[in-house]
């Protein structure tokens, strides 16, 4: 009985088009699904990468720490002596501000130099590395307290005060 049904099914021409159309549709759906899967994975990978980079940058920024060893002012400018006391290398000095209670200026900054006066080749401070720079084009009032604010390449800020 069953084999007759099977033979009838296999050799019957009724509803062949329905089967074929179903197969085609399913195939199309599966193919499109795979395309969507691949695209979605790419998108999520891109998102994961961006998120990972942002977190990594935040972590590096957290690990930065600059110590102001000495800040000295004379006629030639303001000498800022620093040490990288953090746990991450390649701390760069992006911007420096000099400010008091009423104003803020961005003075001209020299290259970062070693304490012996030679230029630091990579212009950044690795862990425990010391360096200094000179801020010029400043007119400061002797005996007045000012702040020097350093913004690093990773976005951390460090501030110290000095008396001109």
């Amino acid at each position, binding site marked *: 009985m069953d084999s007759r049904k099977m033979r009838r099914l296999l050799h019957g021409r009724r509803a062949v088009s329905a089967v074929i159309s179903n197969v085609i549709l399913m195939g199309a759906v599966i193919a499109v699904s795979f395309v969507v899967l691949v695209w979605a994975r790419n998108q999520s990978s891109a998102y994961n990468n961006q998120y*990972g980079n942002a977190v990594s940058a935040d972590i590096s920024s957290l690990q930065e720490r600059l*110590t102001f060893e000495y800040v000295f002012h004379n006629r030639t400018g303001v000498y800022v*002596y620093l*040490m990288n006391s953090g746990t991450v290398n390649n701390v760069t000095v992006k911007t420096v501000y000099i400010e008091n209670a009423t104003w803020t200026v961005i003075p001209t900054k020299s290259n970062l130099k070693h304490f012996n006066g030679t230029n630091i080749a990579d212009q950044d401070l690795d862990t425990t590395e*010391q360096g200094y720079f000179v801020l010029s084009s400043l007119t400061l009032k002797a005996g007045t307290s000012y702040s020097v604010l350093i913004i690093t390449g990773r976005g951390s800020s460090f501030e110290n005060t000095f008396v001109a």
Partner: protein
Amino acid sequence: MKTLLWLRKSVEKLVGSSKGFSSVVGTVFMVLVVMLLSTGVFLWTLSQNTLYNQAVMQKNQTELDRLNEKVTASNVNYTVAGNLVSVQVALQNQGPLSAQIVSLWVIDATLNKYNFSSPLNINMKPGNTTTLTGANAIKVKIIGALWSDQLSSWFVTARGNVVPPQSVGGLTVAQVSAGIGSVSMDFSSFFYYNVSITAPWALSPWLNGGNGYNINSKGGDVAFKVRLTNFDYPQKRDITLSSHSIFWALFPSGGTQQRGAPWFIVNVNNSGIIANTFKNVTLPYGAPTDIFFASANDMSAGFTGGQKFPSMGGVIPGAALVTIALIGQIGTPPGTPPYGQNLPFAAIYVNS
């Protein structure tokens, strides 16, 4: 019964019908895709957040370590010789963590100049004390610095802490002979010279001389040079040495009588020539000063003829005790009380 039949028919229709089958398959795929992606993103975000939290904890720990670091600098003394400011200090690590001293900054507020010594690389375990005195004192060059200038200093540690001096100390026992006075002798700068036979009385070999602890006079006359530093604290007064100051060597002899030989203080110029007259010698506070002893007699009236220099000929070659008696005044006029100090802790050996 009717409901059951109806349900059965609906299921048969559903299963039997091929309509919408692809939609079902597609939906199932979509659900799987969404679940897969969202799970991946969620887990990745979790791991990144964990990393960030760890970094925050490490940062907090670093800050805590920095706050717990406790290094003290006490008994700070400044001496100035030439353009070198010598900083003597006792460093103690009173915290629970090891500490590394990276640099020393010295400011001369009188001249508005500064300089530093870096890297120092002084490593201290918890509880350790490091005494930087004598040859271990840290020297910083400040051109034009004088002993009378207003000096200040601080250390910087590797964690970024600044260690200012807690107390500017006066005398330290290690610097002064048994702490018995304000003047200290530098035992590494004790020399002797041969004196020329005729005037002008020249010292040789000039400038370095020979080691003062081991003398080869070859029967001739000798003179001695000692380096003294005035540590009068807290007044920081000058000490002026008069012609009565004496370098006295006591030689034990084979007989019952011991022999003593005195060398009175003299002035010597930059070429190593002994002056015929004497002007008082000043020991400024904190400045190592070379003092010469050569004359057999008190030079208050200069060389007065006769024996000018102590004779070494009658002395049996051998060891001798040396004591230096410093006589003079302390302070600047008006009001300069007399001053006297004995530096007994030296010995010499005469070969010939």
